[in-house]
């Protein structure tokens, strides 16, 4: 869309050898060069060089070659006399004929005519230049990326003549007319442009001067000269004669004869066709299959078959009906038993009732009769069987049964009872535990052994029995080391103390059994406490070494020299309940047994005696070996008494107690006291003097109690054969209640080191359990029965009365009513 204002303006020749006239100034330096220096070989060489430079482009664009170059060079010299005027005119007309040639442009074109006079354009040169410049894309200069050009469209430009703007750009803002310089300015400008070899045209639409590129100039020149606008276009290409008209034989094997089979029908195809025909005849395929409408004949046949079958017309409605039906699930009525031989028209003889049986039958209630109302009868043939008289009635009753009797589906759980039993580890994996009786502790005729206790090191055991004698045994050899007759001691003391009270003497006459005994758990306190009759007796064992003997003596010194019923405040409750009596003066009668076992043992034998109001049932030490608790169940409020041995003092912790206290025992770590009545266990905090917990055992008569060494678990045995395990952290109800003994439980206990628990019962057996208590609070204790130890005969319906574990080994001592003490060990 180049609009020219002063187009083909002569450009100044940059060449030093250029001619002086302005009019002869050429557009093209080369053209001018060739024009001015005619036949100059040097010039031609330079032109050829320039062409050589442009060879790359030539080869791309057209079919120019060296010949063409030579030709063009030849043409240069030939066409020197080419009239440049015509070219300009053509250019002018062309410009004038352009569709957007407006009035104003005419002026400009005239100007251009003036300036363009005398110019000579060599088309061949132009062509060469065009070829040279072909690198440039022929892109239009219409492109207006900035959008600052005038966008008024195809309207006459003179409409804007009266305005100071010429239109609007892409952004809608006015495009202001550029100031039209005067002629002088234009001339000066043209001069400058000519110097710079610039050709400028005036763009009327945008009202600005546009500098023409070389390519555009070339195009213009070519058009002016009447050549094709594009220099690349070869108007007269060389003729290539493709069809020579001479027949030629060529190609590979083209002169061979083709095989005959090429021209004959294929045998294989024939075979295939025959097969298909055969299948068509057989009916295994049909034309639809051949035409590809049916892919698989099997499916086709199936469809055919299905379509032949009758189908449910109302299919689907039925299901709806089933789904819609409400009410209980259908339950089939119970079937009637099939008819047996008795219902036969000709039953065997044995089914026919005799007369007596018939009479009996008559007497029976109709419901109890064997076949209801039917009486078996014999007929010769089926024909002679008459109608059954009760048929209607029986049918009616059956119908009544079916209608009126509600039928209920009984769900039967199909569970293997074995699977409900918890899976326990095998006992053999939980070794060691006591299994075998190995040592028996014998000393002639002793009555039932009621209680046992092991020394803290496990060297000795003490036993107390029905005969009131405390025996000290060596564990290893089973040798009886010492024995102390507490019955005699008691008799002596009470006789002297209570000379006047005759009725008390009467009651004391029969030998008092030793009900409870315990070795001091402190290793350096070598003494035992035993409950016998109304009293608790402190016995020094004399087993201590040099150091321990001193400690023990110091511990016992107060009790040994106690006077006036002990160091109890007179006004306290305990003063009435208990009286400490030193046994120093009564000790002489049994010299051999009062000598200590150890050479350094200090005193040995009964040291002091605590007399309570009622029979002592249980004595238990505190773990530190200074305090101990005695329980006299019948003593009411003074049932539980806590004593301090080192001070020979006692205290009565409870003012009143509900129920009959059976047992009491200290917590192994905390200042708690467990007090068991017949049915529950109460936990008291000794420092705060409050009840912490009340454990409901569910037993009727608690007979024994032991605390796990961790202090968090408690096991309780009862006379109603139950063993109850309490997890003190868990609840006040039992963690587990086990009922496996055949008779009343007499003793339960934990092993202080191994995860073992055992219970002794009146059936003479001792059950040993693996009782693993995990330190992980989330895991419940594992209780696995591992062994039943039998070794005690049941005498006077009493069996194993007591059991106690060895403190360091997985061994168990047990004693029973038959007077035997056994050591069971692991094997």
């Amino acid at each position, binding site marked *: 869309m180049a609009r020219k204002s002063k187009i083909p303006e002569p450009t100044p020749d940059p060449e030093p050898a250029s001619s002086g006239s302005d009019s002869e100034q050429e557009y093209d330096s080369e053209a001018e060069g060739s024009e001015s220096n005619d036949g100059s070989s040097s010039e031609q060489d330079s032109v050829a060089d320039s062409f050589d430079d442009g060879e790359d482009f030539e080869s791309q664009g057209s079919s120019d070659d060296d010949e063409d170059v030579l030709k063009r060079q030849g043409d240069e010299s030939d066409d020197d006399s080419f009239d440049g005027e015509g070219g300009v005119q053509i250019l002018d007309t062309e410009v004038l004929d352009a569709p957007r040639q407006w009035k104003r442009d005419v002026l400009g074109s005239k100007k251009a005519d003036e300036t363009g006079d005398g110019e000579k354009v060599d088309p061949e040169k132009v062509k060469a230049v065009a070829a040279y410049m072909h690198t440039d894309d022929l892109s239009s200069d219409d492109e207006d990326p900035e959008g600052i050009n005038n966008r008024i469209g195809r309207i006459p430009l003179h409409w804007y003549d009266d305005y100071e703007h010429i239109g609007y750009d892409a952004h809608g803002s006015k495009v202001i007319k550029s100031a039209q310089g005067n002629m002088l300015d234009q001339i000066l400008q043209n001069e400058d442009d000519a110097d710079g070899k610039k050709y400028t045209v005036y763009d009327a639409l945008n009202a600005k001067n546009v500098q023409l590129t070389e390519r555009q100039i070339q195009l213009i020149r070519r058009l002016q000269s009447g050549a094709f606008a594009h220099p690349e276009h070869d108007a007269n290409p060389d003729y290539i004669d493709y069809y020579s008209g001479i027949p030629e034989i060529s190609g590979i094997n083209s002169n061979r004869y083709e095989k005959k089979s090429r021209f004959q029908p294929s045998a294989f195809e024939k075979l295939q066709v025959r097969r298909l025909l055969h299948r068509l005849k057989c009916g295994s395929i049909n034309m639809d299959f051949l035409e590809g409408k049916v892919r698989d004949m099997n499916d086709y046949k199936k469809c055919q078959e299905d379509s032949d079958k009758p189908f449910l017309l109302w299919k689907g409605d039925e299901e709806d009906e089933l789904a819609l039906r409400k009410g209980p699930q259908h339950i089939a009525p119970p079937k009637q038993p099939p008819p047996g031989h008795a219902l036969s028209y000709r039953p065997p003889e044995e089914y026919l009732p005799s007369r007596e049986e018939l009479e009996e039958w008559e007497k029976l209630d109709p419901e109890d009769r064997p076949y209801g109302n039917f009486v078996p009868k014999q007929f010769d043939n089926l024909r002679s069987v008459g109608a059954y008289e009760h048929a209607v009635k029986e049918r009616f009753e059956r119908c009544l049964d079916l209608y009126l009797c509600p039928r209920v589906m009984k769900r039967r759980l199909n569970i293997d009872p074995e699977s409900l039993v918890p899976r326990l580890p095998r006992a053999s994996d939980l070794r*060691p535990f006591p299994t075998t009786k*190995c*040592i028996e502790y014998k000393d002639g005729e002793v009555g039932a052994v009621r209680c046992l206790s092991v020394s803290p*090191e*496990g*060297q000795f055991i003490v036993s107390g029995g029905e005969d009131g004698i405390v025996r000290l045994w*060596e564990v*290893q*050899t*089973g*040798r009886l*080391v010492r024995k102390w007759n507490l019955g005699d001691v008691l008799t002596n003391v009470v006789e002297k103390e209570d000379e006047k009270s005759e009725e008390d003497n009467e009651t004391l006459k029969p030998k008092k059994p030793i009900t409870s005994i315990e070795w001091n758990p402190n290793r350096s306190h070598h003494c035992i406490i035993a409950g016998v009759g109304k009293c608790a007796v402190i016995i020094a064992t004399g*087993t*201590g*070494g*040099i*150091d*321990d003997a001193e400690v023990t003596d110091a511990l016992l010194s107060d009790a040994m020299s106690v006077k006036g019923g002990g160091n109890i405040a007179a006004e306290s409750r305990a003063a009435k309940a208990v009286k400490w009596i030193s046994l120093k003066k009564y000790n002489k009668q049994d010299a051999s047994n009062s*000598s*200590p*076992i*150890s*050479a*350094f*043992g200090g005193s040995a034998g009964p040291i002091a005696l605590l007399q309570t109001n009622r029979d002592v049932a249980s004595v238990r030490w505190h773990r530190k070996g200074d305090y101990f608790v005695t329980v006299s169940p019948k003593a009411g409020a003074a049932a539980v008494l806590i004593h301090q041995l080192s001070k020979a003092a006692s205290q009565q912790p409870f003012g009143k107690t509900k129920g009959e206290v059976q047992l009491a025992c200290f917590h192994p770590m905390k200042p708690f006291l467990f007090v068991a009545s017949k049915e529950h266990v109460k936990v008291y905090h000794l420092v705060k003097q409050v009840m912490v917990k009340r454990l409901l055992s569910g037993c009727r008569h608690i007979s024994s109690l032991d605390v796990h060494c961790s202090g968090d678990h408690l096991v309780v045995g009862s006379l109603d054969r139950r063993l109850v395990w309490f997890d003190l952290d868990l609840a006040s109800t039992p963690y587990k209640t086990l009922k496996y003994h055949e008779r009343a439980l007499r003793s339960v206990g934990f092993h202080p080191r191994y995860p073992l628990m055992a219970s002794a019962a009146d059936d003479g057996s001792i059950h040993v359990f693996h009782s693993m208590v995990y330190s992980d609070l989330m895991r419940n204790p594992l209780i696995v029965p591992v062994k039943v130890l039998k070794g005690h005969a049941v005498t006077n319906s009493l069996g194993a009365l007591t059991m106690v574990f060895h403190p*360091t*080994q997985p061994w168990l001592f047990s004693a029973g009513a038959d007077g035997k003490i056994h050591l069971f*060990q*692991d*094997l």
Partner: protein
Amino acid sequence: MRLKNLRDIKPSLFPPSKPNHNHRPSTIIDHEQINRNSQPQLLHRFSTTIADLSNHHPNKYKQTMDSSDEENTTTKLRISLHLAPGVKPQNSDGTTLEIPSDPIAVPCNIRKRGLSAVVNHLLGRNVVNDSGSNSDDNEEDSLSSLLPPIAFDFLLSSKLLRLPLESAVRKEGLSTEKAIELHYFPARLPPIKEGEGENFPDWVTSLDYTDGVLFAGCADGVVRSFECGDKGMNRKAVRSVGAHTGQIHCLTSIAFGNDDSLLVATGSMDQTLVTHLYDNSTSSKSSGLDLHAVYSGGHGNSITSVAMCNEADNGVVMASGDWDGGLVIWNVPTSSTNETNAEETEESSSKRQKGSSKKKQAHPKSIREAKPKTSTKAHSSNIFGLCFGYQSPTTLLTSSWDHSLKVYDVERMDCILTTNGSRVITSMSRCMNGNIVATGCADNMVRLWDMRVGNGGNVGSMGQIADKTLRQSHTAWVSDVQWSPTDPFVLSSNSHDGTLKVWDIRSSVPLHTVNAVSKKGEKALCLAFGDGYVYSGGSDCVVNQFACKV
């Protein structure tokens, strides 16, 4: 062919070789084999014997030969017999025990007794026990000229043969292609009870034997000594001394000083440890057992074990263990030392019990009070077994109720090795020539430990010991175990079940079992080896003597 006893062997052993017999006689010894091995003199003797016998018993061999065809079908094993190394080739009566070691074939299921008969036969001895098993008068006449048989024991790859030969070979994994090498040696005879000592007032709880003197510690705290000669011990205790007020737990004795006096140490339940001097030479003194020294200050509990050992510089070092696991090392004061402070110690020991103080008054000069050299808590429970290491008084083996066995270095007083078992150890004894230890356990077992092995452990890797441990044979607590002082393979144990068993560690079953107590139900508690005798004491309050000869 199953050989139940020697009577079964005999007929086939001496088959008739009459020429009119076409049958190939059934023999234990393969004739062809012997022929092939060219044993002229043996064959000669063999044939003569056979000839002799066949004259007497024509009928009998006919019977045997009738069944001989069947018996030929039984497979046979080739064995070669050697006298076991270390056994004297001459018997006590001067006859040789050696036989040629060339291979012979024997039935595969032959047992110890059958092989014993073979060896006896090859030695030219009577193959029949002269215990009246033979009822045939003629035969007795003919064999009376032969020497009595010797019972032999056989070693198959250093284990005692207790199974039929083939099963034993298979168990050992030996090849039957080659001749199986068997070593034989005269079997150890069962201990024979040869009387008992006088009845004591209380249990005999510990025994020890040194240089012809047997010491017995009793539960009443009295130490008694017996003199033992070749004929065994005196029935009456020669000397006795009340050493303790409590039951004696342990007793050990050792030759002491340059003269023939012996030192006997006793530890007791009354927590005292004393040594007495037994003077062989003094016949003038009323009591030959004099209180030598009192050891105080080391233990705070019952003393359960004591061991003594001679040191290089003629001194004696003593170790004692108590119930609490405390281990104390003492230097036994020699007679040359401490004379000066005798008076002082007399006063200082005035706290002691009456029995000792009486002694003290009688011989005030000889009493010394020793203080512990070192003491440590070696175990967590009572030490029931102490012995010094083999040829090294610096190592001490201890065993305890806490299931462990430890080796202590006496000088540094630290534990070198700890071996944990699973059972309570009630007694321990060391082999005479090595640190192999036998322990008696509360689970009725006798266990063997090789303390030479770095990690301890039950004996298993040792080539010489048959099984990993000896099989359970006792039916109650093993109360004492003692190793034979003469034979490194033999040990003896007794138990609360009242039996005494003699074991050869090359076999897992005991060699012999005898009743060690006089009454049923009593417990055997202690054991001591003497010269050719074994002594056992228990709750029957007597010391039983058993002749235990090879």
